[in-house]
């Protein structure tokens, strides 16, 4: 194993929450599937069954995605701070590992590894949950939730979600890591306060909201840039077939050509790269607090 692989293992030793939170969360969802109230109207057409299977997996995945967002944010904000606070940075820096590698591995964990773990947990939870629900509501569901083609489509959706999320939120991640590498205390406060102050100053002195809008757009904009409109959403009643009567697949839902050619995507990513380079420079200069 090389140095990067060891650094990834080290993150799992340190942050057992990476897999414990999704495991516990998945367990709770399975308990809900076991003992919760189930009332599902009878599904008749193949299209309805398709919709139910897809919606079920997407809902489970979305719940994991929300929890993941919170945890990954916390992870990125903490990852370059906690070893400075407990002074163990002096141990890590006594080893021949460059600061750039350390920072990039932590970015990889926060933006790729953690989402992958969560989506894997979502898959396992959805499979077990589908099994339980298929038995408990066998009269109305039948084998509706067991659709291998839907399952594979959902896997494509997850991979796309991971890549799109990582690229879109790179500036946010870069900012969190910069704060994490810089702050001497209260990382959460330092992450929120400067953008908030800039926003207020801009409003007071210029009467404009460019910063506020840019931040809001970055936080909320991913569904608009990376996915096609609500008309194709499986979870909405009309989404089973699109206007042409064609069954909606994952290919209709995702919008990679739009996302990867959008200037917004790449401007944000460039800002993210600059912030991450800044975090590396800070990591080289700052040691224990």
């Amino acid at each position, binding site marked *: 194993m090389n140095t990067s692989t060891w650094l990834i293992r080290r993150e799992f030793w340190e942050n057992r929450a990476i897999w414990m939170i999704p495991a516990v969360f998945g367990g709770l969802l399975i308990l809900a599937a076991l003992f919760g109230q189930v009332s599902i109207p009878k599904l008749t057409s193949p299209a309805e069954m398709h919709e139910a299977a897809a919606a079920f997996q997407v809902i489970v995945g979305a719940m994991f995605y929300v929890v993941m967002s919170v945890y990954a944010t916390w992870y990125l904000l903490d990852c370059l701070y906690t070893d400075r606070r407990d002074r*163990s940075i*002096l*141990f890590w*820096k*006594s*080893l*021949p590992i460059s600061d750039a590698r350390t920072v990039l591995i932590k970015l990889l964990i926060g933006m790729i590894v953690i989402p992958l773990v969560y989506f894997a947990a979502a898959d396992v939870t959805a499979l077990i949950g589908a099994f339980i629900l298929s038995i408990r509501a066998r009269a109305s569901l039948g084998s509706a939730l067991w659709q291998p083609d839907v399952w594979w489509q959902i896997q494509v959706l997850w991979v796309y979600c991971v890549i799109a999320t990582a690229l879109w939120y790179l500036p946010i991640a870069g900012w969190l890591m910069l704060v994490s590498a810089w702050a001497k205390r209260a990382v959460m406060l330092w992450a929120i306060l400067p953008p908030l102050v800039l926003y207020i100053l801009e409003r007071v002195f210029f009467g404009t909201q460019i910063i506020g809008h840019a931040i809001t757009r970055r936080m909320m904009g991913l569904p608009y840039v990376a996915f096609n409109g609500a008309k194709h959403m499986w979870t909405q009643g009309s989404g089973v077939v699109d206007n042409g009567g064609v069954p909606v697949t994952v290919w209709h839902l995702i919008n990679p050509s739009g996302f990867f050619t959008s200037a917004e995507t790449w401007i944000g990513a460039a800002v993210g790269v600059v912030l991450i380079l800044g975090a590396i420079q800070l990591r*080289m200069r700052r040691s224990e607090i």
Partner: protein
Amino acid sequence: MAPLIEARDLTKKYGAHVALDRANLNVEAGRIVGLIGPNGAGKTSALRAILGLTNYEGHLTVLGREPFRDRTALMNECCFIADVAVLPSWLRVDHAIDFVAGVHPRFRRDRALAFLAKTQIAGNRRMRELSKGMKTQVHLALTMAIDAKLLVLDEPTLGLDILARRAFYDALVNDYMDETRTILITTHQVEEVENLLTDIIFIDKGRIVLDTSLDDVATRFVAVAVTADRLDAARAEKPYYERHILGKVVLYFENADPGKLAAFGELHTPSVSDLFVAKLSGGAA
């Protein structure tokens, strides 16, 4: 041969505060060097610069490299213990060994395991479950298993009891030190290390005030305990420091003629701690 550590006009500023002020120092290979100074003298800043943990002004090479730019490569040949309390609390002993073995090309696992076998520490324990003395032993096992040319210790025994301190230094001298290695050590406890040092560097207010081998100390410095009646005559020889003890006055001389001084009383070589106090209180020298 070029010195292992060479600093010329090494300067480090924190805002308006000058932690290192054009410091010059040389450390040769195979020596055990004590970097000694009062609190806030710049010891830690000097070590930070040497270990590549901070940027600086001036010229500095360690093992032929610029530490700040080349820290990763430098850490292949150099290791440090900056206070023993820094092993992360969540790390397991066996994982620590696996990790260092994985990332450090000069780490010898068998040596680390042999060192740990002499202790009561089980591999599946986490650092937070270990006493401070046990953590020291783990850190020592990790560090001493690395074939490093330079070992830097910053206040390594801070917070340890006297037994653990003694064990630490015994292990350092008996199990680790040989002619291929160099040790640079800072500590407040001068008495504790003075028997193992070969060289001393005194630092005060960011400047190096003395950089010498202990062999030279014996020829360069002499202390004389003088009774009151001979005091004026002895003072004429320009001691740089005086200390009053039990009715006698001890005068410290640098580069004086021992033949002359012998007339005033018994000569002895000052201990490192005496020298330290004398040098830093006397100032001019």
